[in-house]
Structure formats: C-alpha cells, structure tokens
C-alpha cells in the first residue's frame, strides 16, 4: 500500500509540473502577443513590387524617368535615412539612390518641374554628356522662385572607403526660407543650403531613379533608419507607417520598368527602427534584388 501510495504521489507531482509548464508557456505567449501589439513590433508581410520586364536589361526611361520608391505623406520639416553605398553602373544615362522632401506647388520654378518644389540628396552614377564621370554624392533642388530652375551640387568622385558602408542622408528645414541638405559618407561628403526655399513640405520619398534605355546595373541598396521631423517641435521620429510603395506622381503610376523596390520582409517601418527599404536595377523577370 505504501509503495502504491508513493507511486501515485510521484505521478501526481509529474503531472502537476507538466501542467505548470504548459500554463506558463501559454501565459508567456499571450503576454508576448499583448506587449508586442502595444509597442507595435508585430511582424508583417513585406510589400514588394516586381515589374514585368525582360531578362535583358533594356528599359524605356528616357523621356520619362523610372522610379522604384516609397512615399510618406504629411507635413514635415525634415527627413533622414541611411543608404548603403553600392557600385552603380549608369548605362547610357544615370541611376541613383536618393531621398526627396517635397511639396506640390505651382509657384515659380516649381510650376515648370511637374508642379513640385523639392530638395533631394543621394548618390548617383552617370551625369556627363561625354560619358560616365564616376559615382558621386549630390544634392539638388527646385524652388518656388524664378531663380534658375533645377540646381545640382555634386561632390568629388567617391573614394573606395565610401563603398560597402552607409551614407547618412539628411534634408531639413533651417528656417522659414532655407533647407539644409547633406550626404555624409565614410570618406566623402557634400552639404549645402537650399536658399529661398519656402516650400511647406508634405512629402518624403526614398528610392531609386533610373534614366536611359539600357545598360544600367544597380546592386541592391538599403535605406534604413528612416526618420521624419515634426514641424511643430522639431523632434525626430522613426517612420512607423509603411507609406505608399511606387506612388503615382504627376499622373505617372506603376512602372513597367526597373528599378525594383520594396520593404525587406519583416522589416517594414511598423516593425521598428524606420524599416529597411531596398532598391535595385538588375536583369531578371522576377524581383532580382
């Protein structure tokens, strides 16, 4: 009797421990779900876009340039992103990775540039009439004044240390009529002030622009730590909404050419840290990024 009683007690203890473990696992799962929901880091499916193009890398991006990019809307006084610097081949025009901060407007030179005022900054390859001049950082703008249209400022040719590293890109309002812009790489940088820039920005875009008809090659670049600045108090915030992939601007909508672009799986902005956006222009029918 004694042995049987001890055996039953032992079974009961093992059964109890098993139940406890099960209960704790269930409790932890529920708590994790609740907490993760509260702080907005639940996982999500990545948004990607795969245009229908042939494997041979020809495209139609001359008269109308092609884009693979993401847009956030809302009043802002600045934006930041880190772009990984990869070796670009321009093909017969240019290709770049960049960020824009903009406002729809028909004032001054903006009217003649798609009815947008903007400041942009990033890196590009291909810019000279007589062939490639190499890869460089740049910033450019179009202002709501009749003051020269499109203005571009380039750095010198990038150095070897710039490649394979991040370049910090920033565009932000200095005061009521000036916006600062910079691209800060490991060995090279460029910065400047968009003067007389009175736009009230309502758009931030990141991504790739492609011009020409053939031969470009742009390995996958990543845009991380995407920030926007609150125009009311100047505080910086990670982008937490996914924005719009390949937005329609100036009546130009979904591209039928490269660049390819999208959010890395489970690294969209609402997953945290501003998200991880990618772009590329590479041969392939399916997304080759």
């Amino acid at each position, binding site marked *: 009797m004694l042995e049987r009683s001890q055996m039953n007690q032992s079974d009961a203890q093992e059964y109890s421990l098993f139940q*406890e473990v099960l*209960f*704790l696992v269930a*409790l*932890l799962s529920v*708590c994790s779900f609740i*907490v993760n929901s*509260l*702080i907005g880091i639940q996982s999500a499916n990545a948004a990607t876009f795969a245009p229908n193009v042939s494997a041979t890398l020809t495209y139609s991006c001359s*008269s109308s340039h092609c884009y693979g990019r993401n847009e956030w809307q809302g009043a802002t006084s600045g934006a930041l992103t*880190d772009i990984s610097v990869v070796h670009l081949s321009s093909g017969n025009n*240019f290709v770049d990775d960049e960020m*824009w901060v*903009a406002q729809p407007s028909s004032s001054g*030179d903006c009217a003649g*540039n*798609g*009815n*947008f005022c903007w400041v942009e900054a990033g890196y590009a390859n291909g*810019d*000279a*009439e*007589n062939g490639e*001049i190499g890869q460089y950082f*740049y910033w450019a*703008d179009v202002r709501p*004044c*009749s*003051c*020269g*249209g*499109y*203005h*571009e*400022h*380039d*750095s*010198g*040719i990038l150095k070897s240390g710039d490649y394979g590293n991040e370049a910090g890109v920033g565009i932000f309002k200095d005061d009521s009529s000036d916006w600062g812009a*910079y691209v*800060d790489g490991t060995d*090279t*940088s*460029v910065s*400047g002030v*968009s*003067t*007389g820039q009175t736009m009230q920005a309502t758009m931030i875009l990141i991504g790739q*622009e492609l*011009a020409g008809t053939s031969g470009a090659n742009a390995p996958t670049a990543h845009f991380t*730590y995407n*920030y926007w600045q609150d125009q009311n*108090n100047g*505080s*910086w*915030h*990670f982008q937490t909404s996914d924005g719009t992939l390949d937005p329609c*601007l*100036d009546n*130009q909508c979904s591209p039928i050419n490269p660049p390819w672009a999208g959010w890395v799986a489970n690294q969209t902005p609402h997953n945290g840290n501003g998200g991880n956006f990618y772009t590329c222009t590479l041969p392939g029918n399916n997304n080759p990024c």
Partner: protein
Amino acid sequence: MRVTRLLLLSIIGLVVLVLLSLALLSSRTNANGTPTTPPELQRALSPTGPNTGMPAIIPKSNAPIAFSASDVQTFIQTHGFMSGAVVPGHTLKILSIQLMTPQQADVQGAELVSYTSTKMVYVAKVKGPFYNTNVKTLANGPSTSLVGYEIFDAHTGNMLEWDAAQSLNDGI
C-alpha cells in the same frame, strides 16, 4: 500549495515581460515621449566635411584665380552642358562667363554658401535648348531646358553648381 506556486510563477513571468517592454520603450523615447537621439541620428546631424565640388577644369597655377574665362569656354565647348545634349538643330551658345564672388553669385540665385573656402567663382551662362537627360526629377518635368549655368571655383577649377532653367530671364 501547488496553486500558490503556479500563481507566483505566473506573476513573476508577467512582471519580467512588463519590465522588458518598458526597457524597450524607454530606449526609444525620453520623458516627454519624443525619441531620444540614437547614434545614427547623432551622426546624421553632425557637420559634414568640407565641400569641394566636382573636379572639372585643371587649374594652371596655385594663384587665387588659377585659370581664365577662356579655359572655362574651352571646357564647356569640350564637355557640353551638364543637363544633357543640345537639341538637334541647335548649337550650344555661351552667353556669358563672369568672374565674381560667391556672395555676388548667391544674390543672383546661386547656392554657394556652403563652399566656405571658395573666394571667387566663374559663372558661365549657356543657351541650348538642352535635353534634361541628367536632371534628377521628382516627377516628370520638362524634357528640355532653354538655358543653363555652370559655376566653377576660380582657384580649384571644380564645378560647384549647375542649373537648368526654362527662361533667359531666370536668375542663376
């Protein structure tokens, strides 16, 4: 006894989770609920290096003005205008090449304030029309520009700015 132990373990687990969550949130925000300044943002907001522009004209000396307007003319005639080729049926025409200070150029619409080491610049005004092949646009703007500017540091020969405009009356 078992029920007490179960409850105790559950409460401990819950407390640990809450503490972890608070730690995660506090690393992103300060007491006002605004983001703190993480390292990547601190780096981004720090001053960048000096601006030198893109190497273009090879200077002939180490003098403050190291080449002439004629050298600017030769460079433009050799390399064309930065925005793109001249529209067929037209020829590139150099309207003016002026030597001035960056401040004088800025009064006319240039954006040279960040080129702090530049003392004098050549401002070249050219007429096309030119294709806007190399204009990096937000949305599709005009395919050509009538007039353009190229601005060179008179000491280094580097190109500091180029502009593509629609009207001869536009500023820089």
